[in-house]
């Protein structure tokens, strides 16, 4: 199934993850983000290499969503720099950044509730003159549930189906860097496993992934590397397996999950 899905099609520089894993696609350098007087991010730095899956972990309120929104252009950093594919992108609004292949699956899915599954997928390809039939076929093959619900309104789908739709919609925008904000939130374990498997497939097709999760065990199992955020600062970083083995992580985030799995 994975081999038949080529999501890198149509990009200027199709990349195979194995070759380019050393080149930095996204570099976030010491950014500060404020909501009014509240400093939500206090100098956050990290990078994502082309072809990688990088996990951003942390407790509720740590600043994960803020970080992703800043990368996708929904928020502007008050200090610091964001570089993508060698170009400064901080301050560029979201609707322009998507043209560079930065596609964001926001926290809480945000499918368009009064649009059908089909229309939602069309919205994902809004930046293109016409929707790419091959992309659409690929998404529907990846998420057969969406095919069954094709004419149904987004708002009437189950949580898992909405998450699939949100991911499918982002894929219609031909992402080079896919941002996902807590795709496992509120979903049954079986559905989460399914979605994580699909994320692996998407990554294997050449898409770089920045994954925000509270579900640390599952995210680190998938990710090449990870960062841990705490009240607006990166406190820990390492490869997925290193972090999984780290006592502090185990104590802070994995206590229950490890016992359960």
């Amino acid at each position: 199934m994975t081999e038949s899905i080529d999501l890198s099609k149509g990009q200027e520089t199709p990349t195979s993850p194995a070759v380019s894993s050393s080149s930095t696609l996204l570099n976030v350098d010491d950014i500060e983000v404020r909501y009014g007087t509240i400093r939500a991010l206090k100098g956050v730095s990290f990078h994502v290499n082309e072809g990688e899956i990088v996990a951003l972990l942390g407790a509720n309120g740590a600043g994960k969503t803020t970080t992703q929104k800043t990368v996708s252009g929904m928020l502007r950093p008050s200090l610091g720099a964001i570089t993508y594919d060698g170009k400064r992108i901080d301050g560029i609004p979201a609707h322009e950044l998507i043209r560079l292949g930065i596609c964001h699956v926001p926290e809480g899915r945000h499918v368009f509730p009064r649009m059908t599954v089909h229309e939602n997928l069309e919205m994902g390809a809004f930046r293109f003159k016409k929707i790419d039939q091959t992309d659409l076929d690929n998404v529907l093959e990846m998420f057969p549930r969406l095919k069954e619900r094709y004419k149904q309104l987004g708002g009437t789908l189950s949580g898992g189906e909405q998450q699939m739709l949100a991911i499918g919609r982002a894929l219609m925008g031909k992402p080079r860097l896919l941002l996902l904000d807590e795709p496992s939130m509120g979903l049954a374990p079986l559905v989460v496993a399914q979605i994580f498997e699909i994320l692996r497939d998407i990554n294997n097709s050449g898409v770089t992934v920045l994954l925000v999760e509270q579900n640390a065990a599952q995210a680190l199992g998938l990710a090449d590397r990870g960062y841990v955020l705490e009240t607006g600062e990166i406190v820990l970083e390492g490869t997925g397996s290193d972090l999984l083995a780290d006592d502090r992580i185990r104590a802070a985030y994995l206590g229950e999950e490890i016992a359960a799995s």
Partner: protein
Amino acid sequence: MSQSENWVQQLPQNIIIGLEQGSVYSLIALGYTLVYGVLQLINFAHSEVFMAGGFGSYLVVNGIVGHRHMTGVMVPLTVLCGVLSGALTGAAIAWLLEKVAYKTLRRSGAPKLAFLISAIGASLFLSNLAGKLFNRLPNNAFPTYFDINHQLFKIGNAKVTLIEVIIVGSAVVMMIFLDRLVNRTKLGRGIRAVAEDAPTAALMGIDIDKTISRTFVIGGALAGAAGFMFGTAFGVSNLMGFTPGVKAFAAAVLGGIGNIRGAMIGGLILGQAEVLIAALPFVGAQWNDVISFVVLVLILLVRPTGILGERLGRAA
């Protein structure tokens, strides 16, 4: 009762008059509802966009036609010229209004109340400006380019006049056009996406500012065209926007604010209610304006989100 027999007898004629009024309300109501959809904001200066369309088309049509009397094929051409010039003026004023009165506030993240005050200010400004500029025109009635009361045909014993056909006909064409635009074009999908969830629409590559601006332009064009029709039937003045504007607003709320088909239906219902209730024995035309709001209140008591609900609006 001879009076109630009268009412029944006049029913067909009154339905036609109600349709004429309702069409104008619907066209204006669409502007309120479109803007509410994308901004969750009532554009109280919209009635002045309607007024501007009235004056714009007056100046253009009068400039071209002068005092000549149009007959035959020249009548639809004159109407087309009036509708287009009214729509263009309305679109231009609405575009400007959004730039000056709203966009600046949006940029600075002002609270909703600021928008309301800005809207009222813009409304007073436009209305007074039009008063200064145009109230010394020869007369405030549209010159009679053609015989608006010319009887075209009869339905039963009800007369259907030229102006009624023009108003209802153009309104229907414009509403079908808008429905297509919103449901079938990319611009329309952009407007719907911004109305449902603006931040997510931006993530899809939609420029929210541009979409809002275009929404104002579309709503302004419809109101401006309605200004031409209303002006042709009843004359133009700098205060002509107030009453139809308030009623169209009521119509938009009646149909479900933010809901496009709701605005169309709301306007038509209000037009009928006004004429038919005013024609009842012991009521009378002086109650016209009261009736609209009684109908509005009664329907909102039963259906607080309007007849069709807030469909374009944010659902979550």
